[in-house]
């Protein structure tokens, strides 16, 4: 497109088309579809959203909304506690799945299932399992103890923990898989040498596995934190933000404001998350474009 335009414009010097090689002209043409998508569906929405969220009153309103404060705290719990538990389990399981056994090979094929199936039906499945009257878990508790089980999703702390558990269930296989790749890249000779020296399980981990995996582990943890900020399904489909809007996280809160027709508040709540998101994103980009 830039080429057809250049003829009409009075630019000094040779026309654009003769300054660019044919390969570069094709380069611009082939890049154009993505640039169009980027302008129309990233730049415009983001700019428009920022413009909607420009008024300072929005932030005052957010500050005064207890649901926003609660959602911010929940998000933090989700990220700091949930992700770290998940990554520690993934690190542990990567060692388990690296064992050479036929049955472990088969188990690893099954283990991937939560990642391979869509989250909507499985989250709803868990939601029914937690149903206080009809759910399988309370039936089980009743048959074991004769007592009624708790009303799981009616307590904000338990409900949020369950949302975190669902998140872990869904994304644990992916991170375990990546950590397995990292673990398998470690030279086997090191372990054999350690074996000969009579190193304990912990020493092998501390002095061989961890030093070669820590960069990968930290990268994965940060990446998982950024992505979990956008985990809408685990909370929305399990608790719907309830009870009494106490289990919202930032990603579901934006949609809640949108539903209440408070678009500028929805945007402002997202803008508030940016000071936390952007440094993480910057750090990740630095890491990945090395």
């Amino acid at each position, binding site marked *: 497109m830039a080429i057809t335009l250049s003829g009409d414009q009075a630019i000094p010097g040779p026309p654009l088309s003769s300054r660019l090689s044919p*390969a*570069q002209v*094709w380069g*611009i043409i*082939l*890049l154009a*579809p*993505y640039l169009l998508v*980027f302008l*129309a*569906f990233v730049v*415009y*929405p983001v700019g*428009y*959203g920022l413009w*909607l969220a420009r008024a300072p009153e929005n932030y005052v309103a957010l500050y005064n909304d207890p649901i926003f404060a609660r959602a911010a705290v929940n998000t933090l719990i989700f990220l700091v506690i949930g992700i770290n538990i998940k990554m520690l389990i993934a690190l542990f*399981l990567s060692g*388990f799945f690296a064992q050479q056994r036929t049955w472990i090979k088969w*188990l690893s*094929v099954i*283990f991937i*299932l*939560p990642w*391979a*199936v869509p989250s*909507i*039906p499985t989250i*709803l*499945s*868990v939601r*029914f*399992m937690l149903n206080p009257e*009809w759910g399988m878990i309370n*039936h089980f508790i009743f048959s074991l103890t004769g007592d009624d089980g708790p009303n799981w999703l009616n307590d904000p702390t338990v409900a949020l923990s369950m949302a975190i558990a669902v998140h872990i*269930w869904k994304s644990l*296989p992916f991170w375990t*898989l*990546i950590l397995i*790749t990292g673990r398998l890249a470690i030279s086997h000779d090191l372990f054999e040498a350690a074996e000969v020296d009579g190193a304990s399980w912990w020493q092998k981990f501390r002095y061989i596995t961890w030093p070669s995996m820590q*960069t990968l582990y930290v*990268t*994965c943890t940060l*990446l998982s934190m950024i992505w979990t*900020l956008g985990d*809408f399904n685990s909370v*929305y*489909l399990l608790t719907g933000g309830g009870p009494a809007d106490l289990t919202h996280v930032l990603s579901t809160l*934006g*949609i809640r*404001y*949108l539903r209440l027709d408070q*678009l500028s508040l929805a*945007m402002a709540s*997202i803008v508030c*998350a940016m000071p936390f*998101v952007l440094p*993480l*994103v910057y750090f990740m*980009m630095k890491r*990945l474009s090395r």
Partner: protein
Amino acid sequence: MKLPSLRDVATEARLLLIGIPVFLWTMIPIYHMFLFAISPKEDAFSGKLWPDHPTLHNFEIVFKQQHYFLRDFYVQFWNSTLIAASVGVLTLFIATAAAFSISRLKVPGGRMVLNLALFTYFIPAAFLAVPMYRTMGNYGLLNNHWSLILAMVTIASPYAIWVLKQASDKLPVELDEAAVMDGATTLQIFRLVYLPLMMPSLVAIGTYAVLLAWNEYLYAFLLLSNDREITLPVALGNFLAADDSPWELLMTTGFIYALPPAAVYYAFRRYMVGGLTAGAVKS
């Protein structure tokens, strides 16, 4: 065959002590869904681990659309299929062209476009959902399949470009140079040299985009609302609108909906693991 030593047995037992909980943890929600799908309503709600009378009746109801919530099942299945396929094709087209342009043609500004794409990739998609919803409204695309297709292409492209660019960089430059010597035009290089060599990555990225679109819930339920325009996940979410939802039918439909992506995933696992995990985290 030598008898296992006591030490081997102990190791095996310890591994099983990890393996069995992992198996149960993984399978219970999926088994629960399957159990509901083959149970009559009374059995499903009684908390049994296996129904007294397993049945395929629920599947029959779904396939014959014999319930209020299921009256547009086939239309919605088709919507999901069409949208996923379109997102796959469009993402592949846009991302392959961009990766070729940035990696092989070294277009000026390519590095910056790549960084912008990477930046978009890291911003959680849920944060873009609200402004995207308004934007689609401004473009007059709400309730139109194109709104979801374009939104999903926007979300899928950055990662696609990035992975394909990484893969392109690994192809030797000499190939392009040799083709140019033979008088090949840029498009011929793209078609005859580049595309065939990139096939494994293209399969991985195509699968990634198709699954992403098929599984998407948030954007689908924001952008589409008409019963005959929505995709299957939105229809599943709509089951919750009633107090006495037919959960056995919800789980049956969910089971049917989950089968194609699981099958695709396992069929292309070789490509997915190689192509995607390598790109997902470069340490």
